[in-house]
């Protein structure tokens, strides 16, 4: 019995410990696959698509001052509905039909790490 009581938290700890980094890596992969083409691998808004023909500046996601003005829900919505949903450029397309809710939530968490900020 006592061995079981000790072993269970140990097992849970291993599982939870393993789940954290895996989820973080997944969100990084999602960001780099979908978002980095415009926002850049580092999130600073200078992705490969940002040429002289790109009609706007993609958000610098590491700008903590600007990003702190957005709530998590704002970020979630603009990912899903696109720029026009907040009167921003349609060059930010709607990803709601492409990404799962969990992937969008993961991106919000990842973007908060990039800006090292919280939404007001």
């Amino acid at each position, binding site marked *: 019995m006592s061995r079981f009581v000790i072993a269970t938290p140990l097992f849970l700890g291993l599982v939870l410990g393993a789940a954290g980094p895996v989820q973080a890596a997944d969100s990084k*992969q*999602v960001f*780099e*696959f*979908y978002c*980095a*083409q*415009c926002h850049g*691998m580092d999130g600073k808004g200078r*992705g*490969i*698509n940002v*040429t002289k*023909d*790109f*009609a706007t500046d993609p958000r610098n996601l590491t700008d903590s001052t600007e990003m702190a003005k957005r709530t998590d829900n704002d970020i979630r919505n603009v990912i899903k509905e*696109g720029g026009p949903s907040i009167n921003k*450029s*349609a*060059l930010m*397309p*709607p*990803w*709601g*039909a*492409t990404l799962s809710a969990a992937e969008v939530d993961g991106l919000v968490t990842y973007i908060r790490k990039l800006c090292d900020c919280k939404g007001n």
Partner: protein
Amino acid sequence: MRVLAVTVNLGAALLVMTSTPGYAAGGEAIFKKSCTSCHYTDGPAKEKTIADQLAKKGPELWYAGSKFKKEWLLAWLQDPQPIRPLKYNSLTENNPRNHPKLSAGDAAAMTDYLMGFTSPEVKAGVITPKETAQGKHTFVKKAPCGGCHEYPEKGVARGGKSGPSLVGASKRLNPDWIYAYLANINVFKPVRDMPDFGSVLNPEYLKKVSAYVATFE
């Protein structure tokens, strides 16, 4: 008895006809020998995760016969010029411009082989290439395709780099495939870095923008 023999023979003949591939055997042999490290023709789409897509070295070809124009494919295989500004699946490396060239004979066999891979999702005769104000507006403003794709403007390639170039789309792409792809992208490419516009734009917008892209020189 005679009726039975005729029926059996007819059945056998039909079986042979339906099991005969609609492409030249030479093309299949070349494909299996030289192309399978980067491409696959046995659809439907296999990719389920981002990792699956990233593992690919080149585009899937299981709907090539619905996607490409035959004359373009025949010429391109003999003189392959980059379609993507960047290396496949890369956002940092330029296209290495190293697609193998085929001889005229091999290109003809390969073209016949690849044109045999069609998708029932692509309905013929839906899209006629045409520039309309609505098509251009959708391309430029509503769902700005040029953010990720090169497009021609007065003979100059402009626009983004991450997607395949749309310069020369009128020669390369079947207009009906452009529409089918936009309308039902998950069938063709379930994992890709392009949004599903078929879920957010109505079919009329998709048809007009497909017709517009199909005019690109």
